């Protein structure tokens, strides 16, 4: 039995299709990422799976329980960290955890045990008795994830768990999530490529409500092996040289003095020779594997920005 299974899952809001016939099968213990830009339908999908939204069409089940027919059975099995870090602001860290734990039916002893463990893991033990109003965004996010975990759920939904955090806080959250891999089934939504790449067993790319690609990070990239990329460190480039290169190569980016060119049948030597012929100094040049960004652009024709 799959931990999460959806069949033609669809949600419309006043005729606007937010999620369009999504089919997913997530295995037990798998960390699955839904990757897509804002408005792609990631949060709507999670909200349906958490029984907050009724699907317009299609079905979904969590560990065999139908989300529409057996919502309370589903809720017994899941933990949710929503996109907006929603905490009870007048409660302290410990009380927030206890609230969710006890609503899930945990005894006081169980709540205490789980809370201690989670607060230690999340590095919040010293602030356990502090009002969460004083917490930084990163601390709130860690507490939010701890709240999702306090009931020891079998399936964990993490909706944009690092949204709006600085790189260091983001990295810390990744480490916590990585520790859960294999222990829980996790469905994570993100629009950060590197997050999906770093954490996921499998990735589903979602765009305009549809899952447009599905597989491991490597599988998705392998499909693009015919696309080659090279990065060249150069001196200053004239507009004329850039324009000339653009006519020849489908994707070309210039960041500071690093030129990144992606194209099928990329001829490494030809590019370096061309740059030399136009008087451009080439400091270094290297071939690169395609990134998830390349995959996303290739599939959707759009760029996925932070």
């Amino acid at each position: 039995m799959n931990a999460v299974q959806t069949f033609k899952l669809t949600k419309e809001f006043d005729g606007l299709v937010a999620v369009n016939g999504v089919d997913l099968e997530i295995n037990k213990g798998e960390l699955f990422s839904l990757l897509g830009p804002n408005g792609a339908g990631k949060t709507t999908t999670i909200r349906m799976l958490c029984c907050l939204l009724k699907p317009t069409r299609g079905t979904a089940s969590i560990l065999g329980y139908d989300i529409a027919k057996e919502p309370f059975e589903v809720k017994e099995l899941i933990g949710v960290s929503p996109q907006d870090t929603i905490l009870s602001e007048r409660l302290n860290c410990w009380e927030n955890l206890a609230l969710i734990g006890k609503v899930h039916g945990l005894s006081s002893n169980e709540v205490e045990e789980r809370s201690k463990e989670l607060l230690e893991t999340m590095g919040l033990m010293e602030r356990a008795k502090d009002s969460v109003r004083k917490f930084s965004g990163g601390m709130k996010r860690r507490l939010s994830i701890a709240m999702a975990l306090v009931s020891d759920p079998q399936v964990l939904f993490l909706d944009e768990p690092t949204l709006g955090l600085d790189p260091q806080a983001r990295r810390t959250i990744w480490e916590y999530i990585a520790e859960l891999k294999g222990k829980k089934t996790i469905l994570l939504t993100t629009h950060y490529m590197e997050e999906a790449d770093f954490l996921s067993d499998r990735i589903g790319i979602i765009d305009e409500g549809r899952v447009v690609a599905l597989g491991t990070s490597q599988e998705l990239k392998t499909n693009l092996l015919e696309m080659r990329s090279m990065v060249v460190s150069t001196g200053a480039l004239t507009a004329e040289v850039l324009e000339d290169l653009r006519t020849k190569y489908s994707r070309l980016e210039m960041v500071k003095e690093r030129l990144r060119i992606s194209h099928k049948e990329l001829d490494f030597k030809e590019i370096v020779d061309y740059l030399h012929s136009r008087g451009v100094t080439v400091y270094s040049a290297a071939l690169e594997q395609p990134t998830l960004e390349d995959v996303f652009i290739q599939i959707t024709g759009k760029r996925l920005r932070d």
Partner: protein
Amino acid sequence: MKFWEIGKRNLKELYRNPILLGFLLGMPVAFMLVFCAAAGGGQAGPIALSIVDEDHSQTSSAFIQYLGGIEAIEVNEPVYSEKSQAQEDLEDSRISFYLLIPSGFEEAKQAQQTINLELAYKEADPMIGLQIKPIIEAVGSEFLGVAPPLNVELKGTESEIKNPVVNFYAPGMAVLGLMILISTAAEIIAADREKGFLARMFTTPARPWDFILGYSLPFIPVLIVSTFIYLGVGMALGLTVVGNLGHAFLIFFLIGLCGIAIGMIWGSLVKSESQAGVSWGFIIPIAMISGAFFTVEGMPSAVKSIAGALPFSHAVDASRAVLNGSSFSAIITDIYWLIGWAVVLFAVGIVLFRRRMVS
């Protein structure tokens, strides 16, 4: 010109919020409509008049028949033959007042002597006596002719009551005060919905009744303390408690529960804290027809029916009666009514909450 930009933004916010705009503009209209209707308006319903006929004469019967033909009066059947029966019913609040036609009425008419009629009412309900006295005077003079002279004497029944006005208004004010629980309860739910906290809680296995009871629970101590305050402050400022204080407490507690339950329902329906505040749009009209300000007896029949169906007029009537000395048996129907409303309102709250848990 930053203020102008801020002002423009807020104007747009207001004009694009139809519920709030409707409340702000519709409230004055509704307020005046209900106020005028509750005060009797142009089409006040007939006042139910109980009569004690101690004369048992053809003239007294003819007078009663004559009173029954007056549009503003509805004569209660049967007519009492003994004053003691009517007095007992008055004290137990089964009737609001009665007109006593004394023995010797016919003789006095024939001898063209001064005729004394007695209009007995509860002192804690002074409005009704003042309202009916001029009608009886006018109708009586018309029936009897200009001579002999007619004297209608207003007679309050409870001498123990120190300040009838306080005893009339205090129960109504307490019930009105407890209606604050409606908006407060609704605002707390709406605020949690607006912040997304409710959505987070909806992902837990908590059931609709867990939420309704969980959100109601904090208001119970508030309700108990408030009731003590209303009764305590009222007594300190002249409220006379003739009846059983515990019974009055029970009535206030039950109407407070109804208020909390209405707050739960309203909180389930609205999406934001600002919309929750719109509850005053129905709280004030309900208060006006609850009998807190005007006796329900004098209201037009349609308004009277609505008031009678709602729990608030029962709470005002029963608490007023108990404080003025009525027994528990006299208010038992009101108590059942309040319990019934509380149960129904909480049930409706749970059903609505369940629907709002998934959209």
